[in-house]
C-alpha cells in the first residue's frame, strides 16, 4: 500500500474545521484555558457567517482583552477603561448603517464603566455588547471585581469578599434587562461544546438584531473563567465556575425581543 502523504489528507473534502479568516494568525496572548479566546472566536465566526466583515467596527476594552484588536481581523478601536459603550455610541451615531459592537470585561463594564453601560443601554443604542464576566480583574493580577462572589478570594479580598465592607456582587445583566433600551439580554458560557453552541446562537441573534435595526441594545454576557486570577487549573476553574458562578449568575435568556422572559 502506498504511503499516505500530507497532501493526501489536506484536501477540501476532508475539511472538518477551519479557523475563521476573521481571526488573525497571531498566537493568542491569553492564559491557556482562558475563556476569552473562545469568546473572540465565536464572535468573529458570527460576523463572518453573517457576511458583516466589511461593515463591522469593534471596540476593545481595557482588560485582558485590550489586545482583542490583535486577534480580531476587522477594523477595531481600543477604548479607555470602561468607555467602550460611549465609543461605540459615537461610531454608531455617525454610521447608523454599520455594525458596531463592544467586547468588555466585568471590571470594565460593571465598575469603572457603569455609567456608560447603563446609559448606552438606556438610550437603546443599536449596538451589540459582549460582556465577559470572569468575576475578577484578570489583567491587573486578580483583584476584586464588582462581580466577585461573596467569600471569593482575590488579591484585594485576600480573606474572601466580605459583603459587609466590600459590597455585594453586581448583576449588571439583570439590571440592564430592566431598561427599556435593551432589546435582547442573555447570559451564556463557553466552557463546553454545548455551551459554545448556545452562546454562538445568542451572539448570532444579537448581531442579527442590529442588522435588522431592532430597537435597542443586544447584550450578551458570557460567564467565563479566569484560571490565573482564580489560581486554579483550567479544568478546576471550569468546575468551580459551574459550582459557584452559575448558581449566582444563572445562564439563559433574560429578555428576548424586548420582552422580559418570565
Amino acid at each position, binding site marked *: 500500500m502506498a504511503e499516505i502523504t500530507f497532501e493526501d489528507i489536506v484536501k477540501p473534502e476532508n475539511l472538518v474545521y477551519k479557523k475563521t479568516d476573521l481571526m488573525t494568525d497571531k498566537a493568542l496572548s491569553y492564559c491557556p484555558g482562558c475563556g476569552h479566546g473562545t469568546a473572540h472566536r465565536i464572535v468573529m465566526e458570527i460576523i463572518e457567517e453573517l457576511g458583516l466583515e466589511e461593515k463591522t467596527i469593534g471596540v476593545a476594552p481595557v482588560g485582558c482583552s485590550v489586545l482583542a484588536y490583535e486577534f480580531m481581523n476587522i477594523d477595531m478601536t481600543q*477604548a479607555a477603561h470602561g468607555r467602550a459603550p460611549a465609543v461605540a455610541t459615537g461610531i454608531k451615531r455617525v454610521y447608523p448603517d454599520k455594525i458596531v459592537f463592544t467586547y468588555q470585561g466585568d471590571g470594565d463594564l460593571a465598575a469603572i464603566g457603569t455609567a456608560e453601560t447603563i446609559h448606552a443601554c438606556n438610550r437603546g443604542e443599536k449596538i451589540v455588547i459582549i460582556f465577559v464576566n470572569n468575576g475578577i480583574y484578570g489583567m491587573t493580577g486578580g483583584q476584586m471585581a464588582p462581580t466577585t462572589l461573596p467569600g471569593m478570594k482575590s488579591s484585594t479580598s485576600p480573606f474572601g469578599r466580605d459583603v459587609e465592607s466590600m459590597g455585594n456582587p453586581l448583576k449588571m445583566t439583570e439590571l440592564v434587562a430592566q431598561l427599556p433600551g435593551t432589546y435582547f439580554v442573555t447570559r451564556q458560557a463557553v466552557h463546553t461544546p454545548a455551551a459554545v453552541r448556545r452562546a454562538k446562537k445568542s451572539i448570532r441573534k444579537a448581531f442579527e438584531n442590529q442588522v435588522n435595526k431592532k430597537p435597542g441594545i443586544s447584550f450578551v454576557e458570557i460567564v467565563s473563567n479566569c484560571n490565573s486570577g482564580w489560581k486554579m487549573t483550567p479544568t478546576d476553574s471550569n468546575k468551580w465556575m459551574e459550582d459557584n458562578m452559575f448558581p449566582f449568575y444563572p445562564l439563559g435568556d433574560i429578555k428576548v425581543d424586548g420582552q422580559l422572559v418570565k
Partner: protein
Amino acid sequence: MGELKLMKGNEALAEAAIRAGADAYFGYPITPQSEVIEYLMAEKPYDRTGMVVLQAESEIAAINMVYGAAGAGKRVLTSSSSPGVSLKQEGISYIAGSELPCVYANVVRGGPGLGTIQPSQADYFQSTKGGGHGDYKQIVLAPASVQEMSDFVKLGFDLAFQYRIPVLILSDGVIGQMMEKVELFDQIPRLTDEEVAEKYPWATTGKKKGTERRIITSLDLDSNKMEEHNLHLQRKYKTIVENEVRYELIDCDDAEYIIVAYGSSARISQKAVQMARKKGIKVGLFRLITLFPFPAKQMQELCKKGVKGWLAVEMSAGQMVEDVMLSVKGCAKVEHFGRFGGIVHTPEEVLRALEEKIIGD
C-alpha cells in the same frame, strides 16, 4: 459677504459647527457654555445637514463618543467648561495618543474645584502643558471675539485633520456669553461615508476584503515601539511649531513696552493700550491666537528691537507669563498682572499695572 448676525460666542461656535460640515456634536451641559448644545438642539442640525447632536451622560462619555466617531474619520466636536474639561482629559490623551482629529472647546470658568461660573483663564496650564497623561500636545486656539468663535471652528477642523491632532478652542465666559456681530461662513457640505473612507484610509470604516484592517489605539506594550511613536509625535509637534504660530500685533511698531494677552484679556488690554497711548506711553499689544504653538521666536525678535518690558495680562495667578519668560529669555523685564477666581480685570487696572510694574521703576 457671508450672513451677518448678532450672536453669543457660544451660539456662534455652535452655528459654525453646523456650517463647518461637522458630523456630530456630543456634549454635557455646564455654565457658561450650555448655549452650545441648547443652540444645536434648537437648530435641528440633522434636518439641515445630517449632523448628529447627542446629550451624553457625562463629559467623559462625550469625549469618548468623540474618540469613537473621530476614529471612524468623522468631523466631530464637543465642548464644556473647566470642571467638565478636567473630566475629558483621559479621553483627550487617548485622542492625542492615537492621533485622531477632533475639535473641542473650553469656555473657561474660575476654579479650582467647582469654583465659579464667572470668566477665567486659569486653565492655561491644563490646555498647553498636557492636561491629561503622557507627552502630548494639542493645538490651542484662543478666540478674542465672537467672530473668532465661529472662524476657529472651521480653522480648527482644518488643522485637526491636517495634523491628526485634537484642537482646543480655549475661550472663556466673556467670549462665550457676549454678543457681537458675526459674519457666518457659508455651509461646507458634510463628507459622504464614501468620501471619508477614501480621504482617510486610517479610519475604521469597515475592513474591505483583502485589505489591511485599521486599528485605532494608543497602546503598545513594546516600549521601543512606544518610544518611536513618541518621537514621531514630537516631530509632528515641531512641524506645528514651525508652521502654525498665529498672533496679532497691535501698536507694536514703536513699542517700548508690550502687553501679552489672549482671549478676553487681550480685548481688555487693547483698551488699556489705547488709554496709555493717549498718555504718551509707547505700549503695544501682543495678542496670542495660538497658545500652542507659542510665538516664542516672534517675541524674541521684538526683544531685539529693544522692548524694555513685558506685561503678561491674564485671568489667572500667573500661567501664560511662564511661557513669556521662557520666550524672551531674560532679555527684558517680564511681569504678571492677573485677576482670578472669576474676576475680570478692568482696562484701568491693566493700565495701572503697566505703569506700576513695568514703567514705574
